[in-house]
């Protein structure tokens, strides 16, 4: 850190914030994309926090056993999809509330992950290789800060593709129909529960990838404190992004950047108010939510079915 200051001076701060935004933002990105997809079908899956932990554990374990971090990512994604499937199974029972089901499943998944993850705390699993996007510079600090995880690149590609799919594919239109008006969906002959189940599973798939990032990216360890509420924050993030995948990407970066602010400032020697600045992302969310909401209009883009007190 000493050397970085001498090389770049104050420019270190924005650079560190950017790289932090990407690093911290990647799990946010995947969970919020998953949540966005699920909510667009008219259901909230609040258990994605559990999915994240489960994904981190499964990914790490699989990478350790097979020696391939990419197989780990795949296993984490599948575990996420499985949890999504369980969520929809619960929700398809008459009278089950999706929030309550989500909370139960979140606790369940976290518990299971901690249980099976106990033996994984010691061993070292192979990490996902970083992409050295700072190769053009000979400054160490630039190279170090621009080592980007490939999962982030994948996430950046998924966001616009998802948005495109919402508007231009059959599946996307059906998803939005179900999320916006179950009655209209029934009139079209669409299976509401089936479509929601599909969306919840794919949402879980993405959240699982987010989990794998937590344990398989630098520094590449598994422990029980890996996730600190990212899964829950994702629900807020999706609202802030107005259920728009590309805006989820910006929101995830904003969030990641805000979280990286305190460490970045500390690296140039500013440490007063460290803990206050750590709270920046949460303050940011609150402020943005208040500023952007309006009593005149309902939130633009909110899937109408989310608002209903559904029991079916």
């Amino acid at each position, binding site marked *: 850190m000493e050397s970085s200051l001498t090389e770049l001076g104050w420019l270190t701060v924005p650079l560190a914030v950017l790289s932090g935004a990407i690093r911290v933002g990647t799990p946010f990105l995947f969970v919020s994309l998953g949540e966005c997809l699920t909510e667009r079908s008219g259901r909230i899956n609040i258990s994605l926090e559990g999915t994240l932990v489960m994904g981190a554990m499964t990914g790490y374990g699989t990478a350790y056993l097979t020696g391939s971090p990419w197989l780990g990512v795949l296993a984490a994604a599948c575990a996420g999809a499985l949890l999504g499937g369980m969520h929809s199974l619960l929700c398809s029972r008459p009278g089950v509330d999706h929030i309550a089901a989500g909370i139960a499943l979140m606790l369940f998944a976290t518990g299971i992950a901690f249980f099976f993850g106990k033996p994984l705390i010691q061993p070292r699993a192979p990490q996902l290789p970083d992409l050295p996007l700072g190769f053009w510079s000979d400054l160490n600090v630039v190279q170090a800060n621009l080592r980007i995880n490939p999962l982030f690149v994948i996430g950046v590609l998924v966001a616009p593709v998802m948005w495109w799919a919402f508007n231009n594919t059959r599946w996307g239109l059906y998803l939005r129909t179900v999320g916006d008006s179950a009655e209209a969906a029934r009139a079209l002959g669409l299976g509401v529960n089936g479509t929601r189940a599909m969306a919840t599973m794919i949402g879980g798939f993405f959240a699982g990838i987010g989990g794998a990032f937590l344990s398989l990216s630098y520094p590449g360890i598994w422990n029980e404190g890996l996730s600190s509420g990212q899964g829950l924050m994702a629900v807020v993030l999706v609202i802030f992004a107005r259920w728009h995948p590309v805006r989820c990407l910006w929101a995830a970066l904003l969030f990641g950047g805000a979280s990286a602010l305190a460490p970045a400032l500390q690296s140039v020697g500013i440490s007063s108010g460290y803990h206050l600045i750590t709270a920046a992302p949460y303050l940011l969310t609150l402020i943005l939510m208040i500023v952007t909401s309006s009593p*005149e209009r309902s939130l633009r883009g909110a899937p109408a079915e989310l608002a209903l007190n559904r029991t079916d």
Partner: protein
Amino acid sequence: MTQPLPPHVEVAGLTKRFGSFTALDDVSIRFAPGCFHALLGENGAGKSTLVKCLMGYHQPDGGSVAVDGREIGIANPRTAHALGLGMVYQHFTLVPSMTVAENLYVGRDLLPQVIDWRSARAEIDAFMTRMPFRVPVDARAEELSAGEKQKVEILKQLFHGRRFLILDEPTSVLTPQEAEDMLGLLAGMAKTKALSVLLITHKMREVLAFADEVTVLRRGRQVTGGAVADFNAASLAESMVGATAFEATTKRDGARKGGEEVLEVVDLTADGDRGNRALAGVSLTVRAGEILGIAGVSGNGQRELVDVLCGQRHATGGVVAVDGEPYHARRGEMRDHRVGILPEEPMRNGCVRTMTVAENLGLHTFDRPPIARGGFWIDHHVLREKAKALIARFNIRTQGPDAPVTSLSGGNVQRLVLARELDRAPRLMIAANPCFGLDVAAVAAIHDELVAARNRGAAILLLSEDLDELLALSDRIAVMFGGRLVYETGIETADVGALGRHMAGDGAEAA
């Protein structure tokens, strides 16, 4: 290109029960290709239930449906669509956040995996030029007025090339001219055997003018039917309700020009959902003991005016006063000034879907004695008893006060909201299309109630797209066009021609 004939559809012995309640009892009808069949019956007679069974939305408990001679179990609307059956539901089934174009397209049976919007758009535009009415293709469905939504629903079915078209009260929110045009178009298509039409309506005029066959249901039973030529308005009405008098009997008792001003609106402006200026300076006064009718084609600001008056939308300028006091449509103000509101689409704007009939009837009174004991404890017994009284007085057809409000037929939802609002003995009543979807007897009953309220001294603001209704009830009629009141006349001098011209926006030249 020779088109295949519409399917030959036959229902035999169709029966549908909801719990212990028989909504449809042994109904048999044949629909020949190219027929224009009208289905009549009072509110709750089972009309919607019958066609929902045909569409696979409900599964019948007995009887059969045959298409082109083959008995078929229609498990799902998709099966029905594949057979060429399409339906416009009584409650809108558009996806609110989607644009009209998306809504038109999403119902395709063979929607491609990836949609090429450019060619889809070209197809939609080409289709639109052949249609008798226009809708804004890029607007989201939630921004449309009820009339526009209804048009989109109909266009959607035609766009998908459905050959057996079921229309559940499609014209309630269209202007008479639009309704004529649309039904004329459909009747023409039926004549050339391009389409079969099954029309549910409460308007005798439409049945007599356009349909060639008719079936009348009463309390789930088929009471009569046959060629329309064998019936007249009186005989049809009689078989529907088993009585002959449905003229509104309460008459306006003398003009009450001298009543004090109850509602005063000055220069009211408000934005529409699209951020457009939906109300561009509306000023009006309604006095005690008079009915002010507002005529106009839907989408000219009527919805926004009602929204502002019932607190669902903020005004951007202007003043609203009730009894001389500023009024912001707060719950307390509505109670103190006894303001009753019957909004458009009452299921959406006036009911809580997840509550029962009794709870919905008690929305104004549940927090006051006698229902709320000591001001906080809700006495469900009293709530239910009050609901029972209203159900009886307003003749709401329901399985009881504890039935979910979603189980009510369309017309009965309307009655429920009206019952709740009139129960408050309103001093100011705001009604938007109060008779949307009501049968003849109910229309007469509601007209009676409104006129009686007026005679008791209530000020009534009546927005309606039905000129006949306005001419029958109002003391004064104003025309709304482009977010303004552009014309006003006393009932003595009201002239359909002049009103129509102003509704179409030709007032400036005419004047």
